[in-house]
């Protein structure tokens, strides 16, 4: 480090070693790095989440969402297939789609009424051949104007198990290769072909860098310490049977854990406020009924880099969409769902257990808070670094939770792609 101790702004991003156990604050605070991340992770070479097929069950149904910071529309076409197009009119560039969901026969930009099919093909240009007046034709598009060249920007689309991903980059590996066999196994466990039933949304804005949310779900060191609710009511123990696995590039991960029968115990929590005797007034918050598809694990949290977290925490299942908005904030959209064969009882259970998660959740509200306060510190002293050395400095799968290896793995991948 050449800068003096009182300098807070680095001249160049400074890694202390070739490893990733000390992450420079600047990766979270620099606008140029953020733009480069959008280009290299969200707009190229990565499948990004756009939604669930169950959100657009019928022909003409659409949902507006984002890939990175770009507005896109997911729509079910006449042929029943799913299209994803960028929400930019080919004419004057207006983000024409203002509704967030609905049903349309075609897309029309209100500015000059240019219209597009659900596939994004340009089908109508008012006064394309001009206007006849007193024997002459006024205006009109040039004779060589070819509507086929001026459709909406079409994204590549991949769907599996009812989950839809899109990519601006058409030259991209298959979704299956993107996830890799290890992560795919856990993806398929959750999305095993059953039709999904949308239960609803939660939307929050977290004033922190988007990567911090990926890191939060790659960090099994914190739940038993930050989320004392988990510990107090016996849902988390540091000695729960667990596994951490990654894809071969270490960008995606799954945290797999099985709730022990032993219940709660002060020795493995290390939480000073831990209260052995605390009981819920209404135990239905934890009225957990195992489902056959779990096949053992009671919680599997999957991080798909860069845009998605897949949650199974006992009976509560959701997708969590990371939508960056500048380097210092992201919108975080939760879509809770169930399955078409769910009974009324299991639906109630999913809705009740949703109290644990989301922007007000007993064990999630505090994740957003710690991300906000991390970002505050990063902005104040970009030259400094975080320390992710729990469980060592190397990267690899483990059979326990006492490690930050998944964060180190993500930054190993990040450094390679970003060439920083």
């Amino acid at each position, binding site marked *: 480090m050449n800068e003096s101790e009182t300098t807070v702004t680095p001249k160049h991003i400074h890694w202390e070693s070739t490893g990733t156990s000390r992450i420079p604050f600047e990766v979270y605070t620099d606008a140029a790095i953020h733009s480069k991340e959008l280009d290299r992770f969200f707009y190229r070479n990565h499948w990004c989440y756009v939604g669930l097929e169950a959100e657009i069950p019928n022909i003409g149904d659409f949902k507006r969402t984002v890939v990175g910071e770009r507005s896109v529309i997911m729509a079910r076409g006449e042929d029943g297939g799913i299209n994803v197009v960028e929400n930019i009119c080919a004419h004057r560039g207006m983000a024409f789609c203002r509704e*967030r*969901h609905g049903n349309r026969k075609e897309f029309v930009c209100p500015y000059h009424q240019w219209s597009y099919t659900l596939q994004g093909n340009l089908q109508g240009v008012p006064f394309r051949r001009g206007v006849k007046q007193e024997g002459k034709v006024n205006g009109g598009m040039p004779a060589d104007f070819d509507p086929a060249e001026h459709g909406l920007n079409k994204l590549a689309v991949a769907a599996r198990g009812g989950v839809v991903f899109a990519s601006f980059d058409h030259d991209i590996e298959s979704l299956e290769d993107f996830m890799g066999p290890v992560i795919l196994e856990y993806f398929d466990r959750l999305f095993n072909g059953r039709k999904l039933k*949308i*239960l*609803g*949304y*939660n*939307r*929050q*804005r*977290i*004033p922190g860098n988007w990567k911090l949310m990926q890191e939060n779900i790659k960090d099994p060191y914190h739940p038993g310490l*930050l*989320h*004392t*609710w988990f510990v*107090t009511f016996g849902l988390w123990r540091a000695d729960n049977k667990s596994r951490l696995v990654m894809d071969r590039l270490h960008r995606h991960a799954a945290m797999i854990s099985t709730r022990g029968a032993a219940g709660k115990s002060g020795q493995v929590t290390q939480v000073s*406020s831990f*209260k052995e005797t*605390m009981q*819920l*007034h*209404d135990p*239905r*918050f934890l009225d957990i009924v195992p489902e056959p598809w779990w096949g053992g694990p009671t919680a599997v949290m999957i991080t798909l880099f860069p845009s998605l977290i897949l949650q199974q925490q006992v009976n509560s299942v959701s997708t969590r969409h990371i939508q960056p908005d500048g380097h210092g904030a992201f*919108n975080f959209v939760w879509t*809770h769902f169930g399955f078409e064969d769910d009974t009324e009882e299991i*639906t109630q259970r999913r*809705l*009740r257990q*949703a*109290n644990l998660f*989301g*922007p*007000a959740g*007993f064990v999630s*509200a*505090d994740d*957003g*808070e*710690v991300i*906000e*306060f991390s970002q505050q510190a990063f902005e104040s002293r970009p030259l400094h670094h975080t320390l992710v050395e729990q469980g060592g400095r190397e990267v690899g799968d483990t059979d326990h939770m006492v490690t930050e290896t998944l964060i180190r793995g993500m930054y190993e991948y990040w450094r390679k792609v970003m060439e920083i």
Partner: protein
Amino acid sequence: MDFHDYFDLTQLYADYAAAVSSGDWDLWPEFFTEECSYRLQPRENHERGFPLATLFFESKGMLKDRVYGIRETLFHDPYYQRLVVGTPLVRKVGGGRIDCEANYAVFRTKLSTETTVFNVGRTIDVVVRTPQGLKFESRLVVYDSELIPNAIIYPI
């Protein structure tokens, strides 16, 4: 509905607003009957018929559990909240219950920062008379606010 009942109803709303602006969260569950429903739900879910709520409580016990969570387990930035509620609009009276609703706004003030509009919407309520006075049997808080500013910790 006579003036006396309407006066009690407006007092209930004013009292509730004072309680959830006071920082004394133990006051909050006492506005409800033992068997009750409290849901804090985005307007989007409400209007599209999706059942998910941001908070989904089905008994006074659950409200007490939330208070315990606020006080003992949920790490959060401390903040003041100020609930401002409009005059209750009575929709229906009969069968021992009052169906009513009111607009509201919550302002949040974090330490050392300016006050911001935190959450706005309306409550859709069922109020019943009990020996302890008027209580909410059901309170559905439907919020317009599209993005929760990070987290909602305290009851609205």
